Structures are given as structure tokens and as C-alpha cells.
């Protein structure tokens, strides 16, 4: 049982901005740069579109790590979306901590469409960090009931 748990693939959700980071992922893909398959990418129009609820939902649904990638400062296609995101991200970190989720499990970076390599490196690094931490064990009791497959219905 314990072995099964640790064998389970690390799950990482990456929110990538359409204009930059998603392009970076694409560049990495086209250039056949390998990055860990644990990362599932969700494309959003701008990092400024992402709100704390979405990050919390990802962790609730079983993500072991959440990544957010946006355009470099000054490059946001909606002017200030990434600055807004940056302020929001600081708050998210603090709230996650209160719920026992260490900040290492939540990462955000600025990656441009041409930075395929930076995307690849970041994903490798982040996956390594999350793997070394192991699967996220939420201590909230009701969640552990769910993990054991017992449903209330």
C-alpha cells in the first residue's frame, strides 16, 4: 500500500499564459526538448486571469505542485496582468501556508515564447523539487477519508 503511494506519479498543474509561457512550452516541444510528463498544462489568456480559487482547486483535486507562467515584466499583452498576478501570488503563498501547504509546492516564473529552454529547465527543476517532497499529504481529515476511497454517498 505504502509502496503504491510512493510509486504514484507526481502530479503538477501548470497554468501558462497564452502569449508567452505557453509559447515557451510550444518552443520546447517543437525543438524536442524533453520535459517531465508529470506536468499538465492549462492555457489561460493571461497570468492576470488566474485567481487564488483556481490554485486552491488544483491542490484540492490532488495536484502535488502548481506552476504559473506569465510574460516577463513589461511584456504582458494586457499591460499589467502579470503585475496583478504577482501581487496575488504573494497572497496565495501565505494562504497556502496556513493550510499546511509549503510554498515550495507553488511556483511562478516569467517565461517568454522564445524561452523554450527556460521552460524545460524550470519544469525539470520544479518536478524534481516536488518529487523529493513526495505526494502532497493533506492533513485535513475529511480528505484522508476520500483518499481511502470511502464516499459519503
Amino acid at each position: 500500500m505504502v509502496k503504491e503511494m510512493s510509486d504514484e506519479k507526481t502530479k503538477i498543474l501548470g497554468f501558462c499564459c497564452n502569449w508567452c509561457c505557453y509559447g515557451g512550452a510550444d518552443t520546447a516541444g517543437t525543438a524536442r526538448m524533453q520535459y517531465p510528463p508529470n506536468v499538465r498544462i492549462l492555457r489561460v489568456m493571461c497570468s492576470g486571469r488566474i485567481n487564488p480559487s483556481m490554485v486552491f482547486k488544483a491542490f484540492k483535486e490532488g495536484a502535488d505542485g502548481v506552476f504559473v507562467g506569465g510574460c516577463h515584466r513589461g511584456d504582458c499583452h494586457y499591460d499589467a496582468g502579470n503585475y496583478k498576478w504577482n501581487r496575488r501570488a504573494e497572497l496565495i503563498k501565505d494562504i497556502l501556508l496556513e493550510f499546511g501547504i509549503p510554498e515550495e509546492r507553488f511556483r511562478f516564473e516569467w517565461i517568454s515564447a522564445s524561452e523554450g529552454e527556460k521552460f524545460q529547465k524550470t519544469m525539470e527543476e520544479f518536478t524534481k523539487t516536488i518529487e523529493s517532497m513526495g505526494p502532497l499529504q493533506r492533513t485535513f481529515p475529511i480528505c484522508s477519508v476520500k483518499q481511502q476511497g470511502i464516499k459519503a454517498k
Partner: protein
Amino acid sequence: METQFLLAKAKDKELAKRGECGGAISALFKYLLDQGLVDGVLNLRQGVDIYDGIPTLVEDSEDLMETCGSLHCAPTMFGDLISNYLSDMRLAVSVKPCDAMAIRELEKRHQINEDNLFKIGLNCGGVVMPLIAQKMIDIFYEVDPDDVVKEEIDKGKFIIKLKDGSHKSVEIDELEDQGFGRRINCQRCELKVPRNADLAGGNWGAEPGWTFIEVLTDKGKKLVKDAKKSGYIEVKIPSEKAIGMREKIENVMIKLAHKFQDKYLEENYPDTENWDEYWNRCIKCYACRDACALCFCKECDLEKDFYNDENEVVPDPLTFQGIRMSHACFSCVNCGQCEDVCPMEIPLAVIFHKMQKRYRDKTGFIAGVSEELPPLYSPEKS
């Protein structure tokens, strides 16, 4: 505006007698109603006993007789009462610092129109929950709570007056050491003089029968001047000594609040396991959200299917309290309403207050006090 210090009392004999400290505040309300400068006054009236403070809209100045005096066992909140029900009226409202803080946040969010409002502040040393008050009067004063006809907080004591005219008092420190006394959020509250109101009245530094008023805005200055000219209040200048004394008491109270912040937000702060135990009690009644003046969205994220899970007996704290926190904690004014109404006694204000303090340390934004919106709402590229 340069702040101005005054001593004031009501000219009207009956108001002066019934008022807590000379009735100046009630006299200002009377002036505003009589002159037609406001449509109503929002303040408190005593219900069946001293533990029963009822928010009241006074439209006829004669009725102000019923709303005189301070009620220290009335943990009320006027912010969302105004934004939800009275936003179309020109109002004067008596505000404790936390009322004034919530109102300021709502004004910035265009939920309350500042121009329609006279904010008549009351200094505040804290409020006792009605049930706690009754219990402690029974235990520490050995008195039937129903025999108490008046209560007052003075010189660090909670003083009660009985039917037979006698007084009894106990040190607040002693009560609070035993888990009684003021609400825990009030113990942590560091805004003792509501400098975010138009003026602030209180007994600190005042002579018996007078209220010490700090005038804070041009609107407040004009109000005091005109009410005096029209013969509603009597005014004199306090001595330097009185001003100094008031400042000294205020500073002692702020220091004490910081001590309690250390105690409740650091030393005794629940760890993650304790919080899990608390969250596990939640029955998802939404009372905390409904009571919070800052939670006013017409469509609440917490009710979206997307964040709900019908298999959950208890809501996942991350997508319930966590989401509410992400919307409100940085603006939390530590009014304690969420905690007061939680039927499962989850210490909600503790975590919200702690988060606002952290946000304040990082950004300088002080909820309820800062003039501008929290930086999280800023369009700036910074």
C-alpha cells in the same frame, strides 16, 4: 485638517442626563435631524436589558432619548447595515472604530457614499459578548445578571450598577485571565480612537458630565461649530493636562492590544493540526460570510458548483475558508463578526486578523485606515 480637541456636553437637560458622558453625541444627532441635514440617525437602543443592544434608525429627534448611553455588551456592526439597507439615505451614525473601519473599506468600494454620511465616532476599549457578560456577572460578581441596570468600563474595571443603586466592579485583567471580559478580537484591537470618523468622542481626558471630542475632518469641524451656534451643545477647551492624560491612556491601551496580538496571533496561535480540527467542525452555514461587511459579492465564489463537492460532509477548508480568505483577509478590520456568529466556535477572526497583519507588514496597507484600496486591486505596474 489640523485636529482639534474640545470638551462638549448637551445643552438639553434631559439629553445631558441620559447621555453617557453629558450627551454631546446625542445632541449632535439631534441638531442634524432637527436641521434636516440627515434623514436618519443609526445608533443603538437598549432592548429588554443591558445585554440587548438593538440597532435603531431614528427619524424623529424626540426618539433620541431612547438611544442615549453606551452599551458595552453590544457587539454590533453598522457597516453592512448601511450598505445593504440604508445606502440611499443621508445618515448620521455612531461608530466604534471597527464600524468606522468597515465603513471606510465599503466607501472605497463604492458600497457606501461618503457624502451621505456623518460618522460620529466613539472611542472604544472593547465590547463584551452578552452571554459572557451574564456568565461573568454571575461568577465573579456573584450577582443575578438580571439585577444589573447599567454597566460601564472605567479605569480598567468593568463596573455594574444594581437595581438597589449599589455598584460592584472587577478588574478587566482578572476577568480576561479567566477567559471572560472583552471579546478576544477587541483585546487585540489597536484602533482605540476612531480617527477615520468625522470626530471621535470619549470619556478619556474628560471631566464628569462632559465628552472629550477630537475633531478629525472639516465636516466634523463644521458640525461642531454649527451645533454650538444653534445652541445644541456647550463647548470648552480641555486643559493641556487633560489632553496629555487622554493620550497616555490611549497609548497604554494600544500597548496592551499589542501584547494581546502577540499572545493570540503568535504565542497561542493554533498550528495546522489545530486548524484542521477547527475546520473539521464547519457546517458550511455561510454565517461567517454573511456577517462579514467585506463579503458583499452578489455572486459568491463559495456557492459555485465548481468549488463544491457533494461528497464532502465538511467543506474542504482550502476551497471554502481559503477562498473567502483570498477575497477578504487583506482587508479584514478585525471586527470579530465572523467569529461571533460561527455556531461551531471556530476562531475565524484570529486567522483573518493574522493574515491582514502579515499583508500590512508586506505592503503597508492598513485595513479600515488607509485612504486607498489594497494594492491587490491596483492597476499599477509595480
